[in-house]
C-alpha cells in the first residue's frame, strides 16, 4: 500500500475524471492522474512513467527509476501482491451486479 508500483501511462481514458490507463508489468489498470497533472494538457501524460499508489499516479519518475523500483518490489514479493490486488479488485467489480450483491 505504501510502496506503490511503477506504471507507464498508455492512454487517457476519461479526461473529465482525470483517469488514464497505465501498464503495470503488462497488466492494465485505470488510475487517477490528478496528482501529476501540471500546466500541461492531459494528453502529454501518455508515455510518462509514474509511481502508482492505490490507483493514483502520485509522482513522475524516469524509466530507470521505474525499472529499479520494480526490481526491489519483485525482491520483496510485493510487485506480485500489488498486481494480484489490482486483478482481484477488477474481478470483484466484474462480478458485481446489483442482483449479485443482494
Amino acid at each position: 500500500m505504501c510502496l506503490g508500483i511503477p506504471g507507464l501511462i498508455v492512454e487517457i481514458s476519461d479526461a473529465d475524471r482525470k483517469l488514464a490507463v497505465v501498464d503495470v508489468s503488462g497488466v492494465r489498470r485505470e488510475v487517477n492522474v490528478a496528482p501529476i497533472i501540471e500546466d500541461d494538457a492531459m494528453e502529454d501524460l501518455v508515455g510518462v512513467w509514474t509511481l502508482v499508489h492505490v490507483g493514483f499516479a502520485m509522482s513522475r519518475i524516469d524509466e530507470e527509476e521505474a525499472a529499479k523500483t520494480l526490481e526491489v518490489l519483485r525482491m520483496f514479493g510485493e510487485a506480485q501482491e500489488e498486481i494480484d490486488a489490482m486483478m482481484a479488485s477488477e474481478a470483484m467489480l466484474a462480478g458485481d451486479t446489483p442482483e449479485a450483491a443482494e
Partner: protein
Amino acid sequence: MKYADEFRDPVAARGLLAKIEAITDAIGATADKPLHIMEICGGHTHAIFRYGLDKLTPPGIEFIHGPGCPVCVLPMSRVDECVQIAEQPGVILCTFGDAMRVPGTRKSLMQAKADGCDIRMVYSPLDALELARRNPAREVVFFGLGFETTTPSTAFSIQQAASEGLENFTVFCNHITVPPPIKALLDDPEMRLDGFVGPGHVSMVIGVRPYDFIARDYGKPIVVAGFEPLDLLQSVLMVLEQIRDGRAEVENQYARVVPDEGNPASIAACDDVYEKRDRFEWRGLGEIDASGLKIREKYAAFDAERKFGIGYGASGRSVEEPEGCRCGDVMTGRIKPLQCPQFGAGCTPETPLGALMVSSEGACAAYYQYGGARLEAAQ
C-alpha cells in the same frame, strides 16, 4: 558480507558499508553503546530485514523500527468501530486487503465477513466509488487507512463523489500523519534516538519541510530515503556524517522522486477535505495529539462517522492489548520482536495476535519472514 551479493551493485554496497564502519568507529559507537537510528517507515523495515542490513552494518548501529506501518498502529477500538459499521443493514464495506486480518476486540474484518457482513477487498478507493455508482440502493463505505502517501487518494475520491453528487458513498476515515508520533517518541524520556531515516513516499507528498522540527527543536539528523538497499545504506551514512560533524539537518537522499516541496495537487486536495482531529489512538503508543485526520464539515455527507453515528470513541477508548502481547514495547524499540513471548508461538503471520505481525511492513512479520530463516540457518 555474504549478503552483499544480493545487491544490484555489490561493489557500491561494499564501499558504503566500509565507510559506515569507519564513521561508526570514529564516533566511538559500539555494541554496548550503540547509536539508535530509527527507520520510520514500514517499507524501510521490510527492506532492512530483506537485505539483512541490520547484520551487515556494524554492531555500533542499532535500528529501531518506527511506527510507520498504518495497519500495525490501527487500534483495536477502531477495528471494532469499523466492524460496527459493516454490520449496518445495506452496507458494503470496502477495505484494502492488509486491514482484513487486524484483530479487534470482538473480531477482525475477515471474521465479520465470514459472519455474513458484505466486505469487499479493493485495490483502490476508485473501485469503492465504482461500486457505489453500480449499487445506488446500497451504502458503500470505504475504510480509509494510511499515512500521507494514501491520504490524498481518499481526498480525491471524496471530491469526485461530491462532484458527481453520489449519495451512497462515505469514507470511514482513519488517515494518520507521520510527524506527530515522531514528536511523541522524541518527547518520551525513555527513548534514546540519535537520528532518523525518513519515509520517502510520505515526503513525495508532503515534502521535507514537515521534519524541520526534528533538526531544529530536537537537534537530531533526519535523511529522507529511497527504498533500494543502496538508498538505505547511503542514507544511514548521511545520518552518521551529520552525527560525526555535530550537525542536525533535514537532508533528502531521494531527490529523484521527492521534490523538497512535495506534491502541490495532493496537498491542496487534503487541505480541502480533511482537518486534524484533536487526538487519535495509535496501537502500542496510546493517544497522540493532532495525529489523525477527519473529514471537514463541508464534506459531512461523505463521512461514515457522521452518517452512521459511529464516531471516534464510539466503542470506548484505549482497549487493553491481549495478554502477553508486547507490540508497544517493540514499537518503541524497548525490545526486539524475538523477545516477545508470543512471537512465533501464539503470534504468527497466519494467526496474528498483535498488529505488527499482520502486514509485511510490520517489524514482527518482517522478523518472522527473514529473521527466522536466518536464525535457523545459523543454528
